[in-house]
C-alpha cells in the first residue's frame, strides 16, 4: 500500500471518527450531567438526517437544510426530555434503557409513516462537492474535509463551553453535585432540558452531515449509536476529551483494519478466502479493541474510577 493511499485512509478514519465524536459527545454529556443512558440518541440522528433532506428539498439550500436539522433535532430532544426523559432521571438504568428503547420503536415507525419507506435524497452542497488537492498530491473529498473541520470545531466549542462559560460551570456543577447546583439557585430542570437539547442537536448535526453522503433511511441511527457506545466505553464516560480520543481511535481502527487486514491475510492465504476472512475479522476489530481497553482500564482511557 502506497504512502499516499495510507494517508488518505488515515484521513478517512479521522473523518469517520469525527462523525462518531458528534454522536458520542452528546451521549456522554447527557450521561455525565443527568446520569441517563439514552438509546433514542440514534433516533435524533435519524431525525437530523430526515429534517435536512426535507429542508433541503423544500428550500433548495443545503445550509437551510442543516439549520432545519439542528433545530428539529433540538426541538424533538427538548420535547422528549419534557415528556418522557425527565421522569427517568431518578430511575435505574434498566428503566432508562427500556423507555428509550420504546422511543426508538415510536420514532422509527412514525418517521416511516410520515416519509414513507423509500430513502430520501440529500446531496452535498455545490460549494463543497468534488475534491481538493492536499499537499503531497493527495486528492481528497472537499465535503469530507469539511466534516473533519466542523467536527473539530465542535470539539473545541464544547471544551470552551464547558470550561469557560457560566452554562459550562453549571454543567460541571451538575456533574459533581446535583444538590449544590440546586442550592446555587439554578433552575435545574431548565438546565437539564438545555443539555439534552444540546446533545440532541449534536446528534442531528451528525445525521445531517452524514446524510449528504449516505442513505437517509429509517433505522440509520442504531448502528451508529452502538458504535458511539463503543467509543464511550473506550474513552471513558462523561469525558468530552475521552469521547474525542475514543472516536478517533475507533474511526482509525475500523478504517485501517478493513483495508489492511485483507491485505495482511492475503500474504499467507488464498486471496479470495483472505478477503472474506479479513473482512469478517475487520468487522469485529473495534470490539476487540474495546475488550482490550476493558482488560487494562475498565473505566476507559479518560474515565475516573
Amino acid at each position, binding site marked *: 500500500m502506497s504512502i499516499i493511499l495510507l494517508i488518505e485512509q488515515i484521513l478517512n478514519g479521522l473523518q469517520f471518527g469525527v462523525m462518531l465524536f458528534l454522536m458520542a459527545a452528546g451521549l456522554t454529556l447527557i450521561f455525565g450531567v443527568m446520569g441517563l*443512558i439514552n438509546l433514542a440518541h440514534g433516533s435524533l440522528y435519524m431525525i437530523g438526517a430526515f429534517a435536512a433532506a426535507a429542508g433541503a428539498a423544500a428550500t433548495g439550500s443545503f445550509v437551510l437544510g442543516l439549520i432545519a436539522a439542528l433545530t428539529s433535532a433540538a426541538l424533538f430532544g427538548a420535547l422528549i426530555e419534557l415528556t418522557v426523559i425527565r421522569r427517568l432521571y431518578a430511575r435505574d438504568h434498566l428503566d432508562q434503557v427500556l*423507555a428509550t428503547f420504546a422511543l426508538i420503536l415510536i420514532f422509527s*415507525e412514525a418517521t416511516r*409513516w410520515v416519509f414513507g419507506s423509500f430513502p430520501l435524497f440529500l446531496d452535498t452542497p455545490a460549494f463543497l462537492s468534488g475534491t481538493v488537492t492536499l499537499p503531497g498530491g493527495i486528492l481528497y473529498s472537499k465535503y469530507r474535509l469539511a466534516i473533519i473541520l466542523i467536527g473539530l470545531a465542535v470539539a473545541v466549542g464544547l471544551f470552551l463551553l464547558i470550561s469557560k462559560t457560566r452554562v459550562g460551570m453549571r454543567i460541571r456543577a451538575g456533574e459533581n453535585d446535583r444538590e449544590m447546583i440546586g442550592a446555587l439557585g439554578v433552575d435545574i430542570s431548565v438546565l437539564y432540558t438545555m443539555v439534552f437539547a444540546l446533545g440532541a442537536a449534536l446528534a442531528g448535526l451528525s445525521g445531517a452531515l452524514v446524510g449528504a453522503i449516505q442513505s437517509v433511511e429509517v433505522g440509520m441511527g442504531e448502528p451508529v449509536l*452502538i458504535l458511539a457506545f463503543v467509543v464511550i466505553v473506550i474513552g471513558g464516560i462523561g469525558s468530552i476529551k475521552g469521547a474525542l480520543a475514543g472516536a478517533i481511535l475507533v474511526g482509525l481502527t475500523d478504517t485501517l483494519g478493513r483495508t489492511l487486514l485483507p491485505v495482511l491475510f492475503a500474504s499467507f492465504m488464498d486471496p479470495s478466502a483472505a478477503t472474506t476472512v479479513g473482512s469478517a475479522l475487520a468487522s469485529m476489530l473495534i470490539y476487540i479493541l474495546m475488550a482490550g481497553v476493558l482488560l487494562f482500564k475498565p473505566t476507559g482511557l479518560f474515565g475516573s474510577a
Partner: protein
Amino acid sequence: MLPERMINLLILGLLLAVPLVALAMDEPFIITLATKAAVLAVAGVGLNLALGQGGLVSFGHAAYFGVGGYAMGILASHAQSYTPLMEAPFLIEGTKSMLVIWLVAIVASALVALLVGALSLRTSGVYFIMVTLAFGQMLYYFAISWPAYGGEDGLSIYVRNGFPGLNTLDPIQFFGLCFAVLLIVLFVVNLLNKSPFGLALNGAHQNEERARTVGINVYRLRLTAFVISGAITGLAGALFADLNRFVSPTMFSWQTSGEIMVFIILGGVARLCGPVAGAAVYILLEHVLGGLSEYWHIYLGAILLFVVLFAKGGLVGGLSRREVHHAG
C-alpha cells in the same frame, strides 16, 4: 390482589390451556404461537436471573440465544449431511438428538457468557449495558460474515430434531416438550433464587458494599449468575431454532436482546413468572397489533413506555400484593 404463587399458577395454567383449546378447535397455528411464548419465556427467565436478581442489565443476551441456536443448527446440519463436525484431533459427529444438542447449547453459551461476563463485569452500571450490547453486536457481525454456516442466509433444518418417545413435528407434542423445559427451568431458577447463592446475589444487587463486607466475592458471584443466565438463554436459543427449524444471525441482533428485556419489564422484574407472562403478552400484542396496522411498532412502543413510566411492577407486579423485589 393475589399472592404471587397463585399468579404464577394462573400464568402457567393459561399458557398450558391455550394450546389445548387450540388443539380441540383444530387451530394448530395457535399452538405454534404458544410454543413460541414458552420458548421465549425460557430466554426471559434466563435473563431475569442476571437482570432481576443480580441487577446486571445485560443488553447482549441475544449473544447466548444465538449461540444456542447455532449449536443446534451446526450439529443438526452436519448430521443431515453425514459430514463430521471435526476430524482432528478427534472425531466429532453432528447429531439430531435434542438432548445432546441442548447439552452442547448450554455448554457453548455458558462458555461465551463466561468470556463476555469476565470482561463486562469489570465494569458496572451504564458501562455494563453498553459493553454487553457491543459484544452482542460483535457476534452478530461475526455470524453474518463467517461463510462456513450460511452467513446471513442462516441454516435450514428441514426436520425437527428428535426427542425419545415424541414426534417433535406434531405441534402439540413439541409444545409439551418446550413447556416441560420451561417448568424445569422455572423450578431450577426458583431453587437458585432461594439458595444462599440467590440470597447473596440479590443482596449484592441491593447493596454491593454490604455483600463485600460480609466476605462475599461479588465479582465471582455475579460472574456465576451471568454464566448460568447465559446458559439458560442458550438453551432457549436451541429450542427456538428447533421451533423454526432454522437459525440465522437475526438471533444475534441487538433488537433480539431488547425484546428479551421487554418480556421481563412487561411481566415484572425479578418475578419468577414475570418473563413468562411478558413473553406471552408480547406475542399476543405482536399478533393483535400487527393485524391492526403496518405501523404497530408505534403502539408497542407506547405500551412499553407506559409500563416503564407508570406500571413498574409489570403484569405480575400489578396483580400481586407484595412489592418486594426478591423471591424470599
